[in-house]
């Protein structure tokens, strides 16, 4: 018994417990990383197997080694970064605009019953509409221009962002709002101090989803709306197809995939941080 007590009280033993619950950063990192690495390795192996099977000739379907070395080459060229920069800037601009418009729409809908009846279901409908279906109209309205691309990116992302905010505010526990009113919060201050922070986890979910829609719409736009003087990730895919450059095409697709995943992961990390702080996740 005495030993047990000493063990329980001993500082070193407590820190051992602590270590088990909170393993060092590198170990947590490795635990999170190795399954992903294994999945990537399996995928590459499957790809290589298809190539080896001789289903399509090399010049149509090159193997992973060729594509990856091409990717490495491109990563050392200026043109590639120019394309990445153009697409990235469009994504940031479109998503920012969608953020502003989506949040404003969401706020307007939650603060007015009439507006909710009017556009609530429309927002959900818009969200399920494939944004590529907007392009013909966008091109008619704005011509082959940056504005056409931005238009579609915003239409793709804004409904998801608005819906995230709306469902977040709808789900604020009524008791918190009641407390807010007891403490003297009214109107704007009730939003600022209670409803909006309470809605943040759901809003962030909407942002993540909005990003996925924005990224899809953007790439669709870049394939359809070719602005002659500007290279972009989408335009490079088209060129590669026209030139019959399969290696370049697959390398370009990998970049699109990686950028999408990277940004999604950033949203994931931030979202988990918020959910943890809000007590919604361990």
């Amino acid at each position: 018994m005495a030993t047990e007590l000493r063990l329980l009280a001993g500082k070193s033993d407590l820190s051992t417990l602590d270590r088990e619950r909170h393993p060092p950063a590198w170990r947590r990192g490795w635990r999170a990383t190795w399954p992903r690495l294994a999945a990537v390795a399996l995928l590459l192996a499957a790809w290589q197997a298809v190539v080896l099977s001789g289903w399509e000739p090399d010049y149509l379907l090159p193997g992973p080694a060729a594509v990856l070395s091409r990717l490495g080459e491109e990563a050392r060229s200026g043109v590639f970064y120019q394309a990445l920069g153009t697409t990235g800037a469009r994504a940031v601009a479109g998503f920012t605009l969608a953020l502003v418009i989506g949040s404003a729409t969401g706020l307007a809908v939650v603060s007015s019953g009439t507006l909710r009846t009017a556009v609530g279901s429309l927002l959900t409908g818009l969200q399920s509409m494939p944004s590529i279906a907007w392009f013909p109209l966008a091109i008619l309205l704005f011509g082959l221009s940056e504005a056409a691309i931005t238009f579609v990116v915003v239409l793709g992302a804004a409904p998801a962002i608005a819906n995230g905010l709306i469902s977040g505010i709808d789900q604020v526990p009524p008791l918190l709002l009641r407390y807010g009113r007891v403490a003297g919060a009214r109107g704007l201050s009730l939003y600022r101090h209670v409803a909006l922070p309470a809605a943040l986890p759901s809003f962030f979910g909407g942002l993540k989803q909005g990003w996925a829609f924005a990224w899809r719409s953007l790439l669709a736009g870049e394939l359809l709306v070719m602005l002659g003087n500007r290279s972009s990730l989408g335009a490079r895919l088209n060129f590669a197809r026209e030139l019959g450059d399969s290696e370049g095409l697959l390398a370009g697709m990998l970049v699109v995939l990686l950028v999408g995943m990277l940004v999604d992961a950033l949203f994931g990390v931030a979202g988990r941080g918020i959910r943890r702080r809000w007590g919604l996740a361990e």
Partner: protein
Amino acid sequence: MSVLPLRPQPGHPISVDGVSKAFGRGRDRVAALNGLTLRVGPGEFVCLVGASGSGKSTLLNLVAGLDRAGQGTIDTGGVRPALMFQEPALMPWLTAQQNVELPLRLRRLTGGHSRAEAERLLALVGLGGFERRLPHELSGGMRQRVALARALAQDADVLLMDEPFAALDAITRDDLHTELEQLWLRRRMTVLFVTHNAREAVRLADRVLLLSSRPGRVAAEFHVNLPRPRRIENADLGVLAARIGDTLRELVRDGD
């Protein structure tokens, strides 16, 4: 405990005059309160005991200004009362300290001042050192202490409590009774405290009011002339609680 200054004067009285409140319309209309009249004197501690459906929570909502009476008047001397619920209702994204600061910020007290005030109040409810914990990192009793500190931060001299300790275990509840009594003795706020539990009512109150059910009106009144500080185990306290319990049971039987 010693940090809390004595108040020069007790809190505002609460007057409830001929208040009626009904919910629903037409044939579904249910009267929750019907011509209820009661008064809580300045700095008095009154417990309201009644069966479910006697309109206790309805009354507190009306006094807190969260809802409007159908008829009658309620007067709390123009101050906005603080209200504590059965659940702590803390903002989950704010630390204990930030939760206590929230009513101060809503009253537009500046940052430095409100931080010091929140720290003082948390120490007062026995949570010194827990300022930076989030609500989900605290036990149920600690959360309710934070809620108590937050209610005190409102600096209202009228405090309404809606079964605030009902969800806590007996030991924690006993601790909080002691703390609430100490706070009240020093601060003399006017308290209207709703509970199901006759013993808790006698432990805390100067006066216990029994509400009859459907619709609510005051059916009986008990003065508690026991010396303070009290102990829940006190024999006289138990005798009075038993009497109140008996009366309450009669009321419920007659009501059915």
